[in-house]
């Protein structure tokens, strides 16, 4: 997925939710719990690349994440998280192989489905996620394209800061480490994020 597509995806995700969520949001301090949505977009970088193939190799790319979270106003929360995590891509022309010369295109990405635990103090949030990543590959060699995927166990750790723009909406940044341990894929992401409450009780 390229940067343009990620930007469009972010716009599609963020704008409607902001417009829907804002009227419902309150700053009612008599309510102890809330459910909210967080959207993040930024850049992900693959740590410890294993690629040995020649060509134009790109580690990571534009990433987008969506997190549905619920919990107390104060310290702890829980949620689920998904998104789009580009891992790497490769393109090469006239690549020499044991079967002859070929143009080569390949891309690897993942869709996380994580259960997330959240801890918050002084507008700083620590998130720990555990779950599975749908790791998907698409590759073209000798004019033939294949697609393949698998579900791999992995976990995520992120540290973020959120600044309240209004009683309802917070804007912040987040550094995130995803480790898809089963596939030995490790990613570091830096994202801008928006947090919008949906319900409070």
């Amino acid at each position, binding site marked *: 997925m390229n940067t343009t597509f990620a930007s469009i995806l972010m716009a599609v995700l963020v704008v409607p939710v902001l417009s829907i969520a804002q009227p419902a949001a309150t700053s009612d301090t008599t309510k102890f719990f809330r459910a909210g949505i967080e959207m993040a977009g930024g850049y992900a970088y693959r740590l410890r690349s*294993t690629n040995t193939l020649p060509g134009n190799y790109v580690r990571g790319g534009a990433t987008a994440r969506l997190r549905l979270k619920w919990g107390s106003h104060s310290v702890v929360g829980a949620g689920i998280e998904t998104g789009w995590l580009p891992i790497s891509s490769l393109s090469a022309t006239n690549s020499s192989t044991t079967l002859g010369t070929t143009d080569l295109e390949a891309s690897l990405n993942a869709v996380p489905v994580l259960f997330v635990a959240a801890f918050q103090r002084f507008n700083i949030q*620590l998130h720990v996620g555990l779950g599975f990543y749908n790791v998907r590959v698409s590759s073209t060699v000798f004019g033939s394209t294949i697609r393949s995927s698998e579900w791999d166990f992995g976990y995520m750790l992120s540290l973020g800061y959120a600044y309240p723009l209004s009683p309802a909406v917070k804007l912040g940044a987040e550094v995130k480490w995803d*480790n898809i341990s089963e596939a*030995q894929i490790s990613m570091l992401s830096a994202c801008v994020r928006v947090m919008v409450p949906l319900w409070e009780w």
Partner: protein
Amino acid sequence: MMKILIIPLLAFAVLSCAGDLTVSAPDFGDNSLIAQTSALSDSSKLRIEGIYSVEGGEANFGRTVVAKWNGKFFSFFAGTNSAYVALQGGRLDSTLVFEGYWRYAQDLNTGLMRLRIEASEGGRELSQGMIPSVPVVIRGSFGDGSSQPTNPIVLKLVRPLSQRSTPFWIIAHRAGGRNSDLLPESENSLGIIQIAEGLGANGVEIDVRLTQDGIPVIYHDENLNPRLVKGEFCIGPIANYTYAHLRTLCTLKNGEQIPTLAEALETVVMKTSLSLVWLDIKAEDAIAPVIQLQRQYLQLAASVGRSVELLIGLPSLSAVEKYLADSSHGTAPAICELDLADVRRANAVVWAPAWTLGPMLQKVTEMHNEGRRVFFWTLDGSEFIKVFLNQSMPDGMVTNYPSIVAYEYYVR
């Protein structure tokens, strides 16, 4: 707050940095003497085989070892530390010279070994293919890692190996051994097929899967994964990949190409003395093309005077059905893992039960009475290997540690 953040970060960082570990087989390089030697005759090789006492290396190899030629390898199998020694040898004037490496099968210890049979200790007669007039003594040294061998060792022939009327098949799992045992070649590779005999095997079990475009390849797991392959764009079922994609994007763990079954069988026939291949069918659609390759490579073996059995593995009822549905099955010898009725229905030449079912002497005897052989899979521990050798009289065993089976079988 800082501790809360730092501890999990450090833990995750350590976990994510776990590297790949491999153990290469040390060699003498430019210091090797083997290139200067002449080949030994088959009769000389036979006269060196036997049970030897060990002096000087007891802590590493125990007091007794089995010495056996397997193909181009002269190997020792020890009852201590699961140690084995894979050597190559030849004659240098009236002296026999052997060089290679030792390894503990179940851990990382390895080193160089160089041995000699001096002219006065049997070398003179053996180099001429004659019966030695004195007890054979092998002297030399072994070392640690790739350092030159300096620890002295003396091996004295106690008795020759018992000659049995029927061979016993020691079948190396995954074409020779698993990646988890950190062998110098990847599992299910052409390289490991070529070293399987040095580990003690006279047969190999190889795993057959089918690519998207119908090419039988040898690979164990359903999915491409970091345990078995390298290649950033190798994810998901191997059946999703064409042969061209596999060759272009993926290699085995130690960098080898994922072999086609044809390449594997060609290697067995032309580059080894292995006498049996168990074609473990992991994808039932592979049965028809595998039967064709079986016929083709049996013909090749016959044309070069090689005696080798290529057996179609039938691990499930549906595999038996596919096998029986193939019009050529009558001339395609098979090995069946199911119960006796299915073995008979498929007319398999070998029954291959899991060892977890127990020794089952009565069923083994039934199969023997019908002229079928019995191979148990997959036996790795010496205690269990001894139990099965003594209580069920099988014709062979599949193992991840051929050296352990070889020791237990030949030392009896």
